[in-house]
């Protein structure tokens, strides 16, 4: 039995920043051999220093090797191998082509024109490896008037309804607290890659995947699109309100920045909620009988709930309500999540030792496969860490050949 689900799948990874590295992280944790190819001139790593207080480096100190210490890089690139290669150099392209020849897939998330400029577009690579699967994931796609437009995940949120539908009912559009378009696009890219590999395994035919971050992200708001195309309705921001549930909101608890989320879906839960608050009389109140009546009196309801939650800690409210059968959850911050007994019990965070930063808990794998559980099976790679392994053992270049590549500046051991 394989130890990991994707053992034997080799991916040449040209992705940078967030969306692409997220896609290949998912596959790497599951056992794919992901070889990240970086440029010494423009590598996907921090050069430091950055503004203090951003948490980008251990103790905010870039150190002598900031490129090995970045928070984003290390979280997103664990379980991968890293090599350097100058793709603008003819010899660099040759080495890349050698790698493509022995890989199953290439993933890249440059702007649409970059791979073509390198002379490494799908048509060219397919001549080297006829059954190659290649996934490109620019913001707007590989065709159309916005093809060459620049964007990050945050920009695609604005373009794909995410910003327009996130916010308080009386306020401006906001963003989720993360660059939501990036991991979302990354997951679609991983799905596309695995689907294309399945087809190749069956038929021997490779293919090209053109993934627009915007077009993948808007799937997540399909119901709002349907409301418009079916009914002509332009949905607006609704804060924490739900279209039918009430109470449905985030309520203040005792202590600083301490909140609980409560979602009551039916009368049975509402009555249980009233008993749990020790206010059985409320269950008889006509304003709150039936979901639609509760919904209409949402403001009054929120005030009553708030008066009760304020007197308790959020963890206490969650347990009281869950014991009573009412959906509730403490609004956890990252420190609380790291210590939370449920996350601990499931072993979600994994402690990883990394030679340039030390041992820390990393967010683990979101899917538990019963027989081939994924894991962070190698620490984030140091810069150029696997030049010798990949070029030597996988591609069969001799020490002399590798030294010549170093002298020519095709590969390097430090960012320039």
């Amino acid at each position, binding site marked *: 039995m394989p130890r990991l689900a994707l053992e034997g799948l080799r991916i040449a990874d040209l992705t940078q920043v967030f969306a692409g590295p997220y896609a290949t992280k998912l596959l790497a944790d599951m056992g794919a051999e992901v070889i990240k190819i970086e440029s010494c001139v423009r590598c996907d790593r921090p050069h430091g220093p950055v503004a203090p207080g951003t948490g980008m480096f*251990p103790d905010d100190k870039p150190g002598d090797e900031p490129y090995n210490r970045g928070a*984003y890089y290390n979280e997103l690139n664990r379980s991968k191998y890293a090599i350097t290669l100058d793709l603008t150099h003819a010899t660099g392209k040759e080495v890349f082509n050698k790698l493509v020849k022995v890989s199953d897939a290439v993933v890249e998330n440059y702007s649409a024109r970059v791979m073509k400029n390198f002379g490494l577009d799908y048509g060219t690579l397919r001549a080297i490896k006829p059954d190659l699967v290649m996934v490109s994931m620019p913001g707007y796609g590989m065709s159309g008037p916005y093809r060459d437009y*620049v964007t990050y995940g945050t920009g695609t949120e604005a373009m794909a309804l995410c910003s327009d539908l996130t916010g*308080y009912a009386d306020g401006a559009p906001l963003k989720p607290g993360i660059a939501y378009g990036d991991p979302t696009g990354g997951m679609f890219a991983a799905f596309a890659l695995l689907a294309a590999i*399945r087809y190749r395994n069956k038929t021997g035919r490779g293919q090209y995947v053109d993934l627009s971050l915007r077009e993948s992200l808007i799937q997540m708001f*399909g119901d709002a699109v349907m409301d418009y195309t079916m009914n002509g309705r332009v949905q607006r921001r609704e804060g924490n309100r739900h279209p039918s549930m009430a109470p449905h909101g*985030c309520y203040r608890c005792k202590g600083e920045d301490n909140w609980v989320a409560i979602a009551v879906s039916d009368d049975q839960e509402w009555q249980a909620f009233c008993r749990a608050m020790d206010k059985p009389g409320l269950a008889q109140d006509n304003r709150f009988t039936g979901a639609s009546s509760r919904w209409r009196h949402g403001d009054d309801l929120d005030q009553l709930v708030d008066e009760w939650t304020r007197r308790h800690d959020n963890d206490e409210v969650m347990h009281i309500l869950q014991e009573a059968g009412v*959906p509730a959850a403490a609004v956890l*911050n990252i420190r609380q999540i790291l210590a939370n007994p449920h996350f601990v019990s499931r072993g979600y965070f994994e402690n990883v030792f990394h030679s340039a930063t030390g041992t820390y808990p990393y*967010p683990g794998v979101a899917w538990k496969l019963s027989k081939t559980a994924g894991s962070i099976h190698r620490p984030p790679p140091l810069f150029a860490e696997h030049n010798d392994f990949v070029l030597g053992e996988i591609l069969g270049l001799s020490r002399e050949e590798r030294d010549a590549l170093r002298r020519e500046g095709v590969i390097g051991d430090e960012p320039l």
Partner: protein
Amino acid sequence: MHDQALTGMLVLDLSQGISGAFCTKLLADFGAEVIKVEPLSGEPTRRLGPCLEDHPGPERSGTFLFLNTNKKSLTLDIACQTGASIFKKLVKQADIVVESSSPGVMTSLGLGYEDLEAIKPDIIVTSISYFGQTGPYRDYKGSDMIALALGGLMHVTGLPEREPLKTGGSQAEMQAGLNAAVATLTALYCRDVSGIGQHVDIAVVECITSIMEATTMMHNYTGQIRTRNGARHHVAYPSTILPCKDGYVHVHGAVHEWERLAAFVDEPRLLDEELQKAPRVHADEIDALILPWLMQHNKQEIFAMAQLWRLPFAIVCRVDELLDDPQFSSRDFFAEIHHPVTGPIFYPGAPFKMSETPWQAGRAPLLGEHTTETLGGRLGYAEDDLVRLGELGVV
């Protein structure tokens, strides 16, 4: 019809609600045969809003229609013994089962992973639940917002001085469906290569914690607890949403783009070294310098001009601006899908374009539309068997 990437795969979808339906939509849209096994009254998503003309009905939910494209519908009461045994016959032919019942329910019906593995050793069973199949909160009740709260996204979404905010729509459910789809294909790869099936446990809360963008590492490194920043990115600045003459735009200027940004909005005071050194700290001042220029221009011209300057600005689009969007039109993104109750309606189209095995549009099934085909054609039940099963309330 040409083969698609997942053609030849049979998926039995027992899931109820958004997450499981989104998982199997992705499989179905790329060629898998997905049979949705619905209770006789219909899967509950059929009653979720928004509904056609705001009148509920089993074939009128926009959420259902979107999430169930290209699937088949079989009505079957798997809680009764006859129904469960019919389901097991289907499992023998299936590659994948997707379910989203509360942990323990499938086992109590005699349809847990071990039961199904016994009849089909290489079956893949993907289970989606809010908190996962193990752990002290396993039996807690969840919802979309509950998962956003416990998973960490809610704490960092919203304004610093106000209550934490959920993300628009049902994002925790959708993320779980997306994760489940990728995890299912991962297990399928493993089965195709080595012949083993397995049980895939997806916890919605962990799907959320997994996308928290370096929040854990930043806490590891400096003990910092991230909190809410409104529309502002928590590290890079400017990266925010600001008003303009006729709406809102996303404004972005990375370190190497500062000079261009200053020239673009015609504001040399942005070049002040203090601002550049710690832009996140000076976010209010930066906003104030950019705003006057934005308020003199409308969003379309800001977007087009910024892109000429290679600045990654974007428009905060509303849904009524998308159908005519030149990029979407050029790529034929929206797909018109016919349905006997709604007539032709535009749906979001392919999430990505595959050169050899493209996404295909197909409508959601009517309730029980494929019951006869599945039980008669696939399992070989005679017509009077089906009548009898109908009378018994099994199908």
